[in-house]
């Protein structure tokens, strides 16, 4: 009977809005990829690459990524704690404030207001909005956890708490600035310190927004989908604490070969390599949880999404430490290799897990069967192929670019001009447009499938009681 009080209405709203912002992010992504191959598609002052790119990244990370975090965390916390949300009103406020913040960010970025700090471009009034939003979210999750029925916390709750606390600390430290006017502020840090703080924020944003939350989802939705528990809870806890311990020191791997003190760079390099252990702790835990269940990869589309997702996480966390080694960094830094790394993480790892989570949630929050499993399978292949074309073509481009930049004539002069290296990139950038379009087609299939599920899906008789959400 407790089920009746669970608030699924708020989960439905966050799912809807995260998908809307996800579509915006991918659409703008395709537009900026076209602008790189067809510069005439830049329409100053608003619709230029410089203004649209941060809209793409922020809509992707904060609109889609954080939107899914809100949807899934608000669902998972109620289920794992076996208790309804602490406050429905606060959750509703969070929903509308979330959308207001995303819209305010998009408008100000289009108008050209920016701090120029990557992943933290929004000016100080929006930072204030983000802090209010996060505090509202944090209070609701923490208070719900405090009134939980089980004493021991399942691993997903640990990752959720880490994400909430981690983002709060990172964001406020990096946001420290002196406002000069309503839409202009100056960072509280200067020079090298500013860069160090920015990348301490930047890389830990990867940890706390793009790693901890999808891990929380993975650990929850995998066993729920397969019906068997994870391999080892103690391994998951150990991997959790070592991930928390190690991530903090890795930010400076974005600043190798810069004026940041050498020992900070070395520390970042060492910790980045050590980070393979906790990352693969989770990957192995996922794989070993499939012992005796591998046939489900064929039979259950959700398992396919989840296992491919954790596999991309594994690949990402092998490639990342490699990039953090000085000699390797000297070769690939500033090249197109890096966006390929990012997109295996965002389109492969984070989005695969997010799609699976939403597919899992939809029948439970709407009380309807998913409209079409074949469409969900088609989407799987579209996003997988789209992402692989995207990443592989840019890895090749990055190596080519680095090779050309480093090529020297016997007299020590450079073999290629910068322009010559740019011209070589065109085929790969076209391949990226193509990969992006395929991925977007997958997203359109997803949205169609969700829409049809909600409007025409067969009612799920056994779930009706549990979907009577409030708010």
């Amino acid at each position, binding site marked *: 009977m407790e089920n009746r009080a669970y608030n699924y209405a708020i989960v439905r709203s966050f799912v809807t809005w995260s998908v809307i912002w996800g579509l915006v992010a991918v659409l703008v992504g395709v537009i900026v990829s076209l602008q790189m191959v067809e510069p005439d598609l830049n329409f100053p002052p608003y619709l230029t690459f410089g203004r649209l790119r941060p809209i793409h990244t922020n809509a992707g990370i904060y609109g889609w990524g954080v939107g899914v975090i809100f949807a899934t965390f608000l669902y998972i916390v109620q*289920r794992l704690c076996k208790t309804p949300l602490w406050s429905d009103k606060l959750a509703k406020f969070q929903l509308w404030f979330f959308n207001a913040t995303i819209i305010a960010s998009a408008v100000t970025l289009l108008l050209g207001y920016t701090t120029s700090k990557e992943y933290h471009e929004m000016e100080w009034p929006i930072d204030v909005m983000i802090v209010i939003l996060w505090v509202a979210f944090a209070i609701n999750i923490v208070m719900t956890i405090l009134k939980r029925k*089980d004493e021991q916390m*399942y691993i997903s709750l640990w990752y959720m708490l880490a994400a909430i606390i981690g983002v709060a600390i990172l964001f406020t430290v990096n946001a420290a600035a002196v406002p000069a006017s309503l839409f202009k502020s100056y960072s509280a840090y200067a020079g090298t310190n500013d860069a160090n703080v920015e990348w301490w924020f930047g890389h830990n944003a990867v940890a706390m927004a793009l790693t901890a939350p999808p891990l929380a989802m993975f650990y*929850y939705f995998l066993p729920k989908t397969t019906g068997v528990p994870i391999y080892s*809870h103690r391994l998951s*806890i*150990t991997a959790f*604490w070592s991930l928390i311990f190690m991530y903090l020191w890795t930010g400076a791997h974005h600043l190798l070969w810069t004026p940041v003190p050498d020992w*900070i760079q070395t520390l970042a390099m060492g910790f980045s390599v050590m980070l393979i252990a906790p990352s693969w702790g989770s990957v192995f835990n996922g794989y070993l949880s499939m012992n005796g269940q591998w046939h489900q990869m064929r039979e259950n589309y959700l398992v396919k999404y989840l296992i491919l997702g954790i596999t991309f996480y594994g690949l990402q966390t092998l490639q990342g430490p490699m990039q953090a080694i000085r000699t390797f960094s000297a070769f690939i830094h500033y090249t197109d290799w890096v966006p390929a790394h990012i997109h295996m993480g965002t389109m492969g790892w984070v989005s695969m897990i997010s799609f699976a989570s939403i597919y899992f949630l939809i029948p439970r929050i709407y009380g309807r069967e998913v409209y079409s499993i074949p469409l969900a399978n088609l989407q799987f292949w579209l996003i997988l192929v789209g992402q692989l074309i995207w990443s592989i073509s840019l890895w090749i481009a990055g190596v080519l670019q680095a090779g050309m930049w480093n090529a020297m004539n016997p007299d020590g002069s450079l073999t290629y001009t910068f322009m010559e290296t740019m011209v070589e990139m065109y085929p790969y950038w076209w391949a990226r447009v193509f990969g992006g379009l395929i991925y977007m087609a997958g997203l359109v299939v997803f949205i169609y499938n969700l829409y049809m599920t909600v409007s025409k899906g067969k009612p799920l008789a056994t779930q009706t009681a549990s979907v009577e959400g409030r708010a």
Partner: protein
Amino acid sequence: MDLGSLLYLGVTFGLFVIFVLIVMRTYSRKRKDEGEIAKYRMLDDD
């Protein structure tokens, strides 16, 4: 190395010690069964 660097490394080492203690506690023989309860309980949250 200046005081700032020593502090940075000191905090790192301090956190490492805390981490080791957590691992020892998680894997202590006394808590073997207790440590795995949550993974079963999460399955019947429906």
